[in-house]
């Protein structure tokens, strides 16, 4: 990717604001539009952009499989754990009012923790889905790597990138579907 300075620099500039915006959507969710789901998707899009520009293997080094897997689980546990904490506080399941010294604070705290759980799981799920599709090869894993290197990176058209993404995801999606159909027919 050394040949594409514009893309590299732009994405490096963009990724931090994307993450910051995700956090804004996350924690401003109880006053304005937003919340855990949207924030999770935006946060994950930062990693997906990074993977598109710098390659899936490099991105996987930043978010290894165990990190996304742990994120998936911990988000759910945060959500349900908040509910159980409310039980120990003397309320019903998910009754946030008992989580703090007064009901209003409790409601704030509860909804924020829960939405953070949602955000964690959604972000991890988006990253996992992307990596699962992106790192699957229809043929030999070797073939895909060659394809990456030989693809027309010489010219600087951004369209190329779009094509590459489209072709890779589409071709893999289609070949998967075709494979499934083939099995059915047999």
């Amino acid at each position, binding site marked *: 990717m050394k040949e594409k300075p514009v893309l590299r620099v732009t994405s490096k500039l963009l990724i931090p604001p994307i993450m910051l915006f995700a956090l804004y959507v996350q924690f401003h969710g109880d006053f304005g539009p937003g919340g855990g789901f949207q924030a999770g998707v935006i946060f994950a899009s930062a990693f997906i952009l990074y993977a598109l520009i710098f390659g899936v293997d490099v991105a996987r080094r930043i978010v290894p499989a165990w990190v996304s*897997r742990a994120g998936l689980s911990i988000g759910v546990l945060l959500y349900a754990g908040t*509910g159980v904490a409310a039980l*120990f506080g003397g309320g019903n399941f998910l009754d946030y009012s008992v989580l703090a010294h007064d009901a209003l604070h409790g409601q704030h705290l509860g909804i924020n923790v829960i939405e953070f759980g949602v955000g964690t799981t959604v972000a991890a799920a988006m990253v996992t889905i992307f990596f699962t599709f992106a790192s699957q090869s229809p043929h030999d894993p070797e073939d895909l790597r060659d394809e990456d290197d030989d693809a027309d990176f010489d010219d600087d058209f951004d369209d190329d990138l779009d094509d590459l993404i489209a072709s890779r995801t589409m071709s893999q999606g289609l070949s998967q579907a075709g494979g499934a159909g083939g099995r059915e027919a047999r």
Partner: protein
Amino acid sequence: MSMAGTSFSLAEHLPALQVVIPLMAAPVAVLIRRNTPAWSLAAVITWICLAIAITLLNRVLDTGTISYALGGWAAPWGIEYRIDRIGAFMLVIVSAIGAVVVPYARASVAREISPDRQYLFYAMYLLCLAGLLGIAITGDAFNLFVFLEISSLSSYVLISLARDRRSLTAAYRYLIMGTIGATFYIIGVGLMYMMTGTLNMADLAQRIPAIAETRTVLVALGFLVVGISLKLALFPLHAWLPNAYAFAPSAVTVFLASTATKIAIYVLLRVLFTIFGKADVIHVEDIGAVLMVLAVVAMFVASTVAIFQDNVKRLLAFSSVAQVGYIILGISLVSQTGVAAGIIHVFNHALMKGALFMAVGCVFLRTGSMSVSAFAGLGRRMPVTMAAFVVGGLSLIGVPATVGFVSKWYLIQAALEAGLWPLAVLILLSSLLAVIYVWKVVEVAYFQEPPSFRHDLREAPLSMTVPMWLLAGGCIYFGLDAETTFGIAHDAAGSLLGVLP
């Protein structure tokens, strides 16, 4: 957080814990990532679930319906968990099967699922259990959809875990059909919400009669019944079921066959009798008549198709479609005896199909095949397994002293009560078809010599035969003593129909 000095009583929160415990255990199993600890976790959690379910059933029988407000928000606005007789009975059925399958799954899963995915099986299994229990416990029509999705999505994954690659297409087809079913359900709920402004089932029941004749509510009813019928595999919407059951790992087949379609039948009962009960749509709109015809066709067509199957799992899957027919037939009679017969057959069929699929799983463990010919000589080589198969098979036919007889007895009684004696004849005739397909397997097992090159065939391990005989023994025990189960089913039918409080 003020932990100290508060009144936390475990008993009071059992309705929430029933769902939350398996729901939280699932991500923990993913985090553990080791097969044996994940299995141990699943075993402990499922037996805790069973204990909670039995406690809740006893409490419902003693003191009546339990209501639990999630988050402390009162009923029509918040999500209400509402456990009445039928709900508590379903909780016990689902969690009992859930608890019995886990010990069985250990050896079976080790054989049928690749080692790096076994912990995922237990995670998905716990998630599926949480979803199924949630469906039975919730009193909120939309919350029910959420749990329906949780259980369905995890069951698609469970089916696709098998090594046999045909399980992928089977799971994919189930995913498409199941999603259509769930979508139809949510469209129906959306239309009802449009007309009433509420999602709480009890509240819906109050508001529906006044607007029952509007086009919107009738369309909602249509979407609901068709969507749920897809999920419960009512003929002719059963096409997803045979392959999904046949190619799933054995433990998954046992679990799904005994719980997933049963819980969908419960949802149908809820919609027809709880939500639309006061509007009496099942009579006014002739839904009962339609269901009755489809049920009878299912009993005959699916049983006939089952006779011609070579894959024993597929054979039993088609027999499941036929058995769903018996259950729906009972419900379509809309009498207390009829609905009770349907409900008791939900329980009985869970027992017998569980035992039968477990037996097939044991055979697959040893022979590596599910075709009828693989059963040759197993009557001598695997006597314990085949004896359980015979007990389950006799129950399917409806021989006295098995649970199948109890179901058919009450079903015929309900048909005669309604003055429909031809139905009683049809029930008896379709039982003869069951004789043929059960005999087909039993004959090969007991009257054919085992192939000479398979002299190493031996009995399945105790970890599989004991759970199998728990269910097979249940087939006999509840066949001899049907007082308790029928009592609960009869009262549950009474409260569904509004005869009892």
